[in-house]
């Protein structure tokens, strides 16, 4: 740093300032506030608190209440199940799609790349509304068509609606994750392929022994994104709730925190739930990174 004058020292901070300001105000401060709030409880005097409302330190009471709530625990179990099934299915299909589109014999690769990516451009709420109509008996051509074939399906029932949500999520994000993988595939130098060809490797062998190991970082990245995304599931169940009685107000952990805060005005428990979700995302993501990192040569 000896060679830098004052202006040069200031420059990076100046350039970072707009980002840092927003990051502090919209991320760091609310997080700190939420953590503080999660240790607070409210006391009221009078029938509605008209005699005064005061807040006091609650210790771990809010966390106890959050964890004693069966519906919240059920929501955690639900997204874990969702993640165990949906994330591998999506990552697998993303990998296959990317490898197919990047294979030498692919037809119209740029058209299909764009086609697979388009759903990501549709906001989650809109996508959920569109899909809700494709699931709704009386509206859906899919349900009507299956009915004609003698197959009665209820996409919105208690046992099925979670997988109907998984379908929406996969439909939305597969194309986006596929692009990340394709970007990594494109970064593989041509010589590697040539060397494989010289060694007599066919397309399948190239995919398994050359491409897969080299796109591992992209797959790890997309898996971590998907794990975090799963824990944050909110818009899809919120929208499908209007057409499915199987979805309660605490269907996913994020939905539970939302209901606690904005429906029940119980900010202490909502903050505790939010902190727990963040911790879970942290732990799961790092566990996955450790797990995959250990295999690194």
């Amino acid at each position, binding site marked *: 740093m000896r060679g830098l004058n004052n202006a040069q020292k200031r420059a990076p901070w100046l350039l970072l300032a707009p980002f840092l300001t927003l990051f502090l105000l919209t991320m760091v401060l609310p997080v*700190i506030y939420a953590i503080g709030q999660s240790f607070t409880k409210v006391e009221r005097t009078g029938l509605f608190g008209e005699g005064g*409302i005061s807040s006091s330190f609650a210790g771990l009471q809010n966390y106890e209440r959050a964890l004693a709530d069966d519906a919240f625990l059920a929501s955690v179990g639900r997204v874990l199940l969702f993640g165990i099934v949906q994330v591998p299915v999506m990552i697998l299909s993303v990998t296959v799609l990317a490898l197919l589109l990047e294979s030498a014999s692919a037809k119209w690769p740029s058209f299909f790349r764009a086609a697979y990516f388009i759903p990501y451009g549709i906001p989650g709420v809109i996508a959920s509304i569109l899909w809700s109509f494709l699931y709704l008996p009386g509206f859906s051509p899919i349900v009507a068509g299956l009915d004609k074939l003698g197959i009665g399906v209820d996409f919105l029932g208690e046992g099925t609606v979670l997988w109907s949500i998984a379908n929406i999520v996969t439909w939305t994000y597969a194309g986006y994750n596929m692009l990340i993988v394709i970007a990594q595939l494109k970064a593989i130098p041509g010589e590697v392929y040539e060397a494989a060809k010289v060694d007599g490797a066919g397309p399948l062998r190239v995919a398994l022994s050359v491409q897969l190991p080299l796109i591992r970082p992209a797959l790890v990245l997309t898996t971590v994104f998907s794990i975090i995304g799963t824990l944050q599931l909110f818009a899809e169940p919120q*929208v499908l709730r*209007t057409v499915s009685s199987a979805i309660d107000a605490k269907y996913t952990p994020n939905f539970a925190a939302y209901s606690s805060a*904005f*429906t029940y005005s119980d900010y202490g428990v909502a*903050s505790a739930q939010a902190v727990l979700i963040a911790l879970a995302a942290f732990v799961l993501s790092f566990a996955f990174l450790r797990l995959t990192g250990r295999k690194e040569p």
Partner: protein
Amino acid sequence: MRARSTVGRRSVLAAGAGLGAVGAAGCSVGSAANSVNAEPVVPAADGPVTLTYWAWLKGLQVVCDLWNKDNPDIQVQAAWSGSGNSGGYAKMFAALAAGGGADIAQVEFQMLPSFLLQNGLVDLNRYGFGDLTGDYNPNDLSRVSVGDGTFGVPQDTGPMGFFYRRDLLEEIGVNAPATWEEWLDVARAVKESDPSRRLESFNINDPGNFTSYCMQAGADWFTNDGETWTVDLAGEPTRMVADMMDTAFDEDLFNTAYGAFTSGWFAAAANGSIASVITGSWGDALLTGVGGTEGLWAVAPMPTWPDTGFGSATLGGSTAAVLATSQHPAEALQFIHWMTTAPEAIDALIENSGTGWSSSPDYIGRTREEPSEFFGGQNYNQEIFVPAAQAQNPDWIWSPIYLELNDLMSNLFRKRGSSGTRLGDSLEDLEREAVTIMSDKGLQVRGANT
């Protein structure tokens, strides 16, 4: 009115506030500790003011403009809040917590106590509402008052009736049921006529109808002595209704796939797989959206209990309340009083916003004084809803945990469907849970049966 049909979906967009806001919204606690009603009265403004009005009444600006034209000093600007339970209230609570927001808000009767818990409403008696009470239906006033305070002006209510497809019931050979016992028989007959047909749907995600049936049967779920709440969710009237519902569920008499006035319901009502709906008077406007059924509907009084209870109950209905953060409560009350009592305002609200039953005992609305073509020429408003508005449970009070209780009851009905647990066996647990929630809110509370 309860606009929770198709418009509700739109408000989902507004609900995407996300978790980051949880922290920010939490600021209320502590900072809003002192009730606005303990502070000095805000004097009327010297100059012109502009008021904001958050509601989910469509075409509300047209009504406001009628007022704005004659009152240049008090201009009212309507803004779409998103329907209450699907984001509108969330927005209002967040705004109250942040110390901003609208002057006037649409708050349903059952939600007033939840707003009071946040010290979110202005006591209108401090601004002279006491002199205006003669202009409103006394039943409605009792549900907006707590102690000496009045916290919302009744705008519209939903006295309930039995809306039914006259043609379908005639075809099956049954009459509109006069009692709940008969209602079960009619429901059985409708199901027998066609296995895919049901008399009614029941919305598991919003069991508001169950609440109203209990209100009608004479339940008083929440009472207080001025300091302590008593919760009675397992008393005799509630048991009676729960048993009736249990029978209906045991015999699969409800369509539970969708609630009334959802997209799926409209499709089912149009093709005749739903034959009736017990709902608030505002349901008439929504029924006109059922394609191809003009002239086929009729209205009968709500089924009753032979020896007990009341002739009707209410479902939905809204007040216009002044939010605690308003800088101009006096002006807001002037506008609200005009909107809820002036005949031209009532007519404009009915015509543009499809509001429910007028809270003004003097004027039900021009279009409602005449027979309706859609309802086969029946003069149902005069015939059914004028008496229904009078036949109400006068002791019913809405609790400060309306939404929590609604979700708890949803869970009961969901369990009823999945594992067959009888409602009648769950009422005491329900009461205990309700007591816990209220005491977690820092209130004094006890259970009547637990």
